């Protein structure tokens, strides 16, 4: 495993060198993402100019939630972006055959194909929003809190990875599943606002079936005790533990599901070809 990570990092270093050949592409791409973030923030400030809280969360709490979401999504874009190419027909055009003839795990080879430098935008904005909101929230953030935050960044990344893996694996049967991936990805837009503002149907979708709500909204509630956890009633004394258990179990379930569908898909292509 350590050797694979070493190989991955070496290859990624070359990819970064390759990406550096296209400085203009990088600047334009990052500018696009920055503008997108700014629009979200302007919209948010406009909303909060008329109200004190949204779904029970104050402006600073929403900024914390958005910051966490942006950081996790930025990390996901950075290392796990190439799967989009495969979902949009890459496998059926022969890439899978190429992966299969190299002595490395297939998904690692997909990850090695690209490091998306445009992710610098959301990662930087995410970190900045987290820093500003933690400072302005006047909450005592000790070492344990930072460890929990790091854990939520990790589980959020696992959830995004697993969801993409499940949908991308479908392309191993269908030839392409990028369109479905795009539709599911659109649900991320709902998590720019507190999930508590939506009705129970959308809450169920975002907190169970397409669990983007567990990337940033539910982790934010770990530090905000005044807002109840949607869909579940949890006693106040075990609230923090319940949130940790909820996020952990959904991450594990989706990761296992993703691995299962991926393995089945590979088995299917080994039987039928791509």
């Amino acid at each position, binding site marked *: 495993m350590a050797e694979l990570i070493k*190989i991955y990092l070496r*290859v990624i270093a070359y990819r970064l060198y*390759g990406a550096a*050949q296209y400085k203009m592409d990088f600047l334009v791409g990052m500018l696009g993402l920055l503008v997108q973030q700014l629009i979200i923030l302007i919209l948010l400030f406009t909303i909060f100019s008329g109200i004190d809280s949204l779904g029970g969360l104050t402006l600073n709490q929403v900024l914390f939630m958005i910051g966490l979401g942006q950081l996790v999504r930025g990390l996901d874009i950075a290392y796990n972006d190439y799967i989009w190419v495969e979902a949009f027909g890459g496998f059926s055009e022969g*890439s899978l*055959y190429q992966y299969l003839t190299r002595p490395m795990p297939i998904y690692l080879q997909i990850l090695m194909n690209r490091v998306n430098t445009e992710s610098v935008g959301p990662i930087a904005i995410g970190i900045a929003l987290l820093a500003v909101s933690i400072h302005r929230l006047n909450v005592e953030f000790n070492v344990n809190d930072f460890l929990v935050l790091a854990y939520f960044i990790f589980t959020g990344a696992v959830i995004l990875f697993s969801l993409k893996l499940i949908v991308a694996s479908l392309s191993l049967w269908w030839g392409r599943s990028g369109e479905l991936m795009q539709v599911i990805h659109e649900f991320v837009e709902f998590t720019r606002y507190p999930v508590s503002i939506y009705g129970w149907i959308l809450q169920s979708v975002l907190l169970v079936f397409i669990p983007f709500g567990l990337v940033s909204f539910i982790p934010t509630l770990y530090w905000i005790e005044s807002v109840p956890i949607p869909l579940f009633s949890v006693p106040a004394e075990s609230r923090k533990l319940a949130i940790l258990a909820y996020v952990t179990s959904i991450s594990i379930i989706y990761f296992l599901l993703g691995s299962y569908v991926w393995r089945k898909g590979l088995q299917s292509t*080994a039987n*039928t*070809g791509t």
Partner: protein
Amino acid sequence: MFGEKVCKVQLIPEHKMNIIEVSNITKNYKVSKGKSSFQGLLSSLLKNEYSVVNALKGVSFNVKEGDICGVIGLNGAGKSTLIKILTGAMYPTSGSCVVNSKVPYKEREIYVDKIGVVFGQRSQLLWDLPVKHSFVILRHIYRIEKKKFEDNLEYFTKIMGIDKFIDTPVRMLSLGQRMRAEIVSTLLHDPKLLFLDEPTIGLDLIAKSTIRRAIKQLSEEKGTTVILTSHDLDDIDVLCDQLVVLDSGKVIHDGNKSDFINKFRSNKKIVVEVDGQLDLKQLSKNPLKEASIVADNTYSIEVDEQTQKLSEMLKELVNELPIVDLSIEENSLEDIVHSLYH
């Protein structure tokens, strides 16, 4: 003692071992039946109908270590399926396949460490980076020792003639240069087997010739076994010791390439150029009745030596026609395969 030369003698075993043993392989696919009407499309969403395609029907053959084996056949003959099974990317429906003492599809990661695969229409080089950077990445992927990597790089860049553009970004290379670099990229880890899928597709004559010469040299000097599929039968004709011909999922020839050519090369062609336009129907004996027109006033006549005497045919032609030029040609491998399929 000092100055004594040490001669390395490469011993070539008289009885080469089989490196590929394919026995009675079948492969059946389920293919979704396409619907032309909108109503059919809607019903297919609810109930998908399949038909079964028998891509391989009991394919058996062996390849000896160090040989170059050509696999040919028309589109849909089963070549790609066979190569996918041999490279470990696909399971057969039945039958067995042992390559380099491994079952490719059961021990993929260990097995592929000892093979190289070139896809004529897919690149494993990094588009934006100099060629050498791709090689270094492959060094890490295949975990090649530094010394071995450097020695191999020097050797293969020389025989493929890529040293002049090894520091050029891949996107700036011609198709021929890229293919040569592509082949080097699959050889750096010293594979025992090299699978070449259409390595000369789209290349000019000089590039084709360089690649063929290098493959031949590689096979002779390193003893690498090469499996080659190509639509360019000259590749097969120049390179291969063994030939496997597939037709509709079955092997219709497996053996020495020369045997195949001798078996089917009994037919010869007489090519005649005549003076002026001829009205073939006006000729009394009409020796050109089976001829095909090659160019203006030039005709090609197939002669089956088992039923026709070449000398009599020639006599007939000379007596009957105002001949300007005449030549007798043997059928090329391409002609033979073409006549087999048609």
